[in-house]
């Protein structure tokens, strides 16, 4: 790990972190999904939570956005317990995109993105020229300006996801939490959406997301949180975190980790039970399949 990167993450973790969870226990109906977990979200980075199905990664993200209330512990936003803040004030600081949201049939892109201004509006001040400006910039930044007049339900999955991210952008927050932003997208559209997330990060935002695809998570994150069974197994830069041992421990996945031929991150090559060349795979037992 380079010295520069260590200071980056550590200074973020210690001084400038805006969002953190302190000893949270979260569950549904008595069953604890997350038990006494601490985590700090470094500011200005893309943090991705990964882990096997049911490990509590979405639960953690939803707790960080106060969609779920922890039974014990607290989520701290800018030094204050998020449970004690007004919902509206939280929405001015923290943008949230749930998994696979659905817009009413016929709602136009511009009207959907305009909903992102809601936390900044009131009964008397429902719309202003500032709002219009922010919405136009959000549309432009996500590359959906020319779709502005179209109904959201007429768009492709990838375009639709851009539009939803545009709405979260119009909210004007520095913190963006995205729950599986690439769900139901093919690889090309997933890359497209993650490039967009990268642009938002370059523009100075802190992004936290949940991703299923480990290689996409590795490629696009500065900080990985690896979860298993409701607790954090490892956290750090993908280069330091992603190892064959960790993948086995977290996912029970046999894989080999190589250098990404096009990037500076590791690349995970899963092995599986068949199709791998014998001898190529460290630790693979020779299986005799005769008669």
């Amino acid at each position, binding site marked *: 790990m380079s010295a520069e990167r260590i200071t980056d993450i550590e200074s973020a973790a210690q001084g400038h972190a805006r969002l953190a969870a302190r000893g949270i226990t979260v569950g549904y109906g008595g069953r604890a999904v997350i038990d006494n977990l601490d985590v700090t979200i470094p500011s200005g980075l893309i943090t991705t939570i990964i882990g096997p199905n049911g490990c509590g990664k979405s639960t953690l993200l939803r707790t960080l956005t106060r969609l779920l209330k922890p039974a014990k512990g607290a989520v701290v936003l800018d030094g204050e317990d998020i449970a004690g803040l007004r919902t509206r004030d939280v929405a001015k600081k923290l943008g949230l995109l749930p998994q696979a949201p659905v817009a009413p049939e016929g709602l136009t892109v511009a009207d959907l993105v305009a909903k992102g201004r809601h936390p900044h509006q*009131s009964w008397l001040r429902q719309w202003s020229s500032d709002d219009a400006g922010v919405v136009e910039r959000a549309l432009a930044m996500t590359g959906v300006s020319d779709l502005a007049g179209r109904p959201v339900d007429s768009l492709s999955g990838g375009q639709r996801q851009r539009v939803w991210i545009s709405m979260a952008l119009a909210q004007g927050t520095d913190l963006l939490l995205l729950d599986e932003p690439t769900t139901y997208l093919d690889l090309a559209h997933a890359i497209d959406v993650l490039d967009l997330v990268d642009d938002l990060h370059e523009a100075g935002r802190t992004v936290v997301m949940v991703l299923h695809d480990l290689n996409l998570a590795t490629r696009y994150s500065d900080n990985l949180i690896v979860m298993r069974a409701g607790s954090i197994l490892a956290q750090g830069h993908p280069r330091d975190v992603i190892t064959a041992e960790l993948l086995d421990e977290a996912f029970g996945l046999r894989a080999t980790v190589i250098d990404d031929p096009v990037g500076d991150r590791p690349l995970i090559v899963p092995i599986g039970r068949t199709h791998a060349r014998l001898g190529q795979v460290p630790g693979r037992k020779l299986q005799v399949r005769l008669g």
Partner: protein
Amino acid sequence: MSGTDVKRSVAPGVRLGQVSFVWRPWLVSVTLLLAAATFLVFCLSIGVGDFPIGLSRVIATILGGGERVDEFVIMDLRMPRALAGLIVGVALGVSGALTQSIARNPLASPDILGITGGAGAVAVFLVTVSGGTAAAVVSAVGLSAAALAGGLGTGLLVYFLAWRRGIDGFRLILIGISVSAVMEAITTWLLATADIKDVARAQAWLVGSLEGRSWGDVRVALWCTLVLLVVVSCVAFQFKPMHLGDEVAAGLGVRYSMVRAVLLLCAVLLAAVAVSAAGPVPFVALVAPQAAMRLARCPTPPMAASGLVGALLLTGADLVARTALPVTLPVGVVTAAIGGPFLVYLLVRANLR
């Protein structure tokens, strides 16, 4: 695409001093046209009767400049009935728009929240069961008030049964349908075992009618509706993001459980007011929001336009019931005759898509 095209898609704002809102010319025009049409039908309806009064004289009298005779006929005799139609229509239209928005389902209406069924069952019970207590209740509070209590009770029962860490649209609809079915079964059983004279009275109430409304009936309904509409318009702003789902709304800073609880309660109360004023007039609450959405070209039911369509539909149906048909029919028959086919049209259209 150029910047001007983007600007056109992002709705412009209007500013009046401290107040600013989105400028949607089409929605505003449709709403104003609906208001004008409703007023026109309202005045026509007042003019019709054994002593016909021309439209201009009706309008002059309403505005306070009519003759003594007209004033007596209009303000004392006909106004309560016409106003009752207007209030019931608005209440049902807004109640339907709220229910459909909360359930995120175009087929939801206060009819399936148990209000109508509960009110009907109580009313029929009081009419058909001859006996000291029932008669005493009716003479003490009146049939409408007793039915109102029944509707309200059933509506709240559905509400609490549907409550499970918040209100879920599908659960609400399923429980509402189940409870309504029980209420309808009770009603049918009561009618089947009752004396034939009582059945006729009960039927007349069940169809929904504006006959014989007095200023006393109307005043209560008017004030209740106005108070509820004020509450709805205050909370409606917070409700807007909830069309995108609970989690998105929460992310946008809306306390969705509370907003939904308040608005659903308003929907139940509005429907109950309507039922107590005119009986269970069918289909208005279902049809009005859907028609308003299509007229105003909105993706979600617009509140004001839904109320106006409801008022127009009810007032118009009452006018048709009294004039165009050979026999005078209760208004509920006509709204059902219009509402039924429209529901079928909605379903067929959804199938074809």
